[in-house]
């Protein structure tokens, strides 16, 4: 919790009042790294269990200064790109499903169990089945990311629509019977706050999903696959650095969305009654 809060200070570095925050973060990290280093050295914990910060820095130096092949950073960005595609696709499809579910109780009753299944069936188990149909490429990967992240979107959107106070729907009915006009002026603005908050959930889960889906699939260049391979080859510092990089990317992504959410909510007040 503390780390997350302080790292968000890193993201908002342009604010002057955050300078102190940043300084504190750096201090905190330094102390953390020092203690970590000391403990590992003192108790002689082997590198394959927990690497020391110096191991990590050695690896970083090798990776970024001496290596000629693609770095873990490039791979992380590659994975992040797929996560982003999945993220937006999932939002789009999830919102569509949420709207559909809110329209009719029958459709809801029929579709909901399937939607629920996406939450129970583990992605690694589903991957080979899907891969047999869609191939072992990016399509399957994106499909799995969407499958992994779509549930909360659809449920939250459905509930948001059902929770629009009846008075408002009635009132708009006196102006028009056209569903589209009601959708545009009432439903769509009401969906903005739930969409923004669900985006925060999906921001992180789409990255997790990307990493998991890379294991059973043969999409090259992804950081998930790289972590997996490095782990099998006992390249533990590489695993750690990869995990840290991908965490920082998640955090930045999450903070971008939080910032966007705050901006929209305070400026436009969509969906508030």
């Amino acid at each position, binding site marked *: 919790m503390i780390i997350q809060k302080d790292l968000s200070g890193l993201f908002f570095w342009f604010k002057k009042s955050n300078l102190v925050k940043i300084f504190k973060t750096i201090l905190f990290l330094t102390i953390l790294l020092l203690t970590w280093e000391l403990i590992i050295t003192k108790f002689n914990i082997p590198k394959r269990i927990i690497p020391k910060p110096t191991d990590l820095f050695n690896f970083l130096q090798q990776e970024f200064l001496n290596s000629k092949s693609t770095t873990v950073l490039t791979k992380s960005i590659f994975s992040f790109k797929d996560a982003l595609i999945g993220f937006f696709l999932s939002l789009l499809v999830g919102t569509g499903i949420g709207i559909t579910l809110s329209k009719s109780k029958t459709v809801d009753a029929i579709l909901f169990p399937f939607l629920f299944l996406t939450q129970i069936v583990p992605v690694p188990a589903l991957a080979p089945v899907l891969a047999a149909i869609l191939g072992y490429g990016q399509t399957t990967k994106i499909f799995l990311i969407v499958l992994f992240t779509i549930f909360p979107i659809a449920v939250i959107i459905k509930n948001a629509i059902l929770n629009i*106070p009846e*008075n*408002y729907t*009635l*009132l*708009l*009915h*006196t*102006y*028009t*019977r056209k569903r589209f*006009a009601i959708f545009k*002026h*009432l439903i769509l*603005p009401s969906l903005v706050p739930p969409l923004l908050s669900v985006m925060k959930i999906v921001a992180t889960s789409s990255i997790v999903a990307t990493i998991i889906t890379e294991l059973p699939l043969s999409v090259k260049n992804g950081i998930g696959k790289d972590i997996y391979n490095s782990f099998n080859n006992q390249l533990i510092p590489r695993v750690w650095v990869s995990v840290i990089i991908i965490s920082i990317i998640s955090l930045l992504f999450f903070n971008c969305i939080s910032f966007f959410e705050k901006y929209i909510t305070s400026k*436009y*007040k*969509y*969906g*508030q*009654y």
Partner: protein
Amino acid sequence: MVNTKAIEVKRLSADFKGDGKDLNVLSNINFTISKGSFNCIIGPSGCGKSTLFRLLSGLPTRDSCKISGSIRVLGKKPETASRNREIGLVLQKPTLLEWRDVQSNIALPLEIMGYTKEKQEEKISELLNLLDLNEYSEYRPSELSGGMQQKVSIGRALAYDPELLLMDEPFGALDEINRRRMNNEIIKIWRKTKKTILFITHSIDEAVYLSQKVMVLSKKPSTIHKTINIDLEYPREKEENSSKYFKYIKEVRGYLNEASC
């Protein structure tokens, strides 16, 4: 022949079908309202005022609501009158959209109905003047008091110039002072626009202060218990302390007491 009746209700009954038990809410309601008049309906809590309001407004009712009898609004079915945009609604809660400021809340029906930008602006400035809301045109609903919010929603109902205004306890949430202030406003608006108004309330004082005709509903299954014609001059600030005014208050209270037990 010119139809001078704004609303004509004959033998109207409404039941809510629940699982196993039926609830007879309205039973054999008959009344007429003439064009351009100000009318109040008063009745005990839960007697079916809002149900009647919903039926008159021509909005789709719940499947569980079974009705019989006939309702004519401006000589047609309520649904038709509603589709023709001849009915304006003001609900108990202001029901404004927080993401729109005062003027664009008033413009909402105009936007939906496809008025041109110039037409919209013309109408908005006319209404802001009528309602004394010019200074507040760019305020958000949450920045206004309850009374002002309700004023905005009255403006919104008037925007597309409906012939009939239906109001369901619009000032129920206001304190006495603000309620009286809004009563004066609505009388002013009524006298300027010459709309037909049907106003639902559970305040005896408000009913007598506002209307030319007060209809007292009895408790469930409710029917029109009595109709009282209020023969007082407008505006009623001066009449408010007259003995005639008190006589009407006493009369309505008497009927309401009879109707409630």
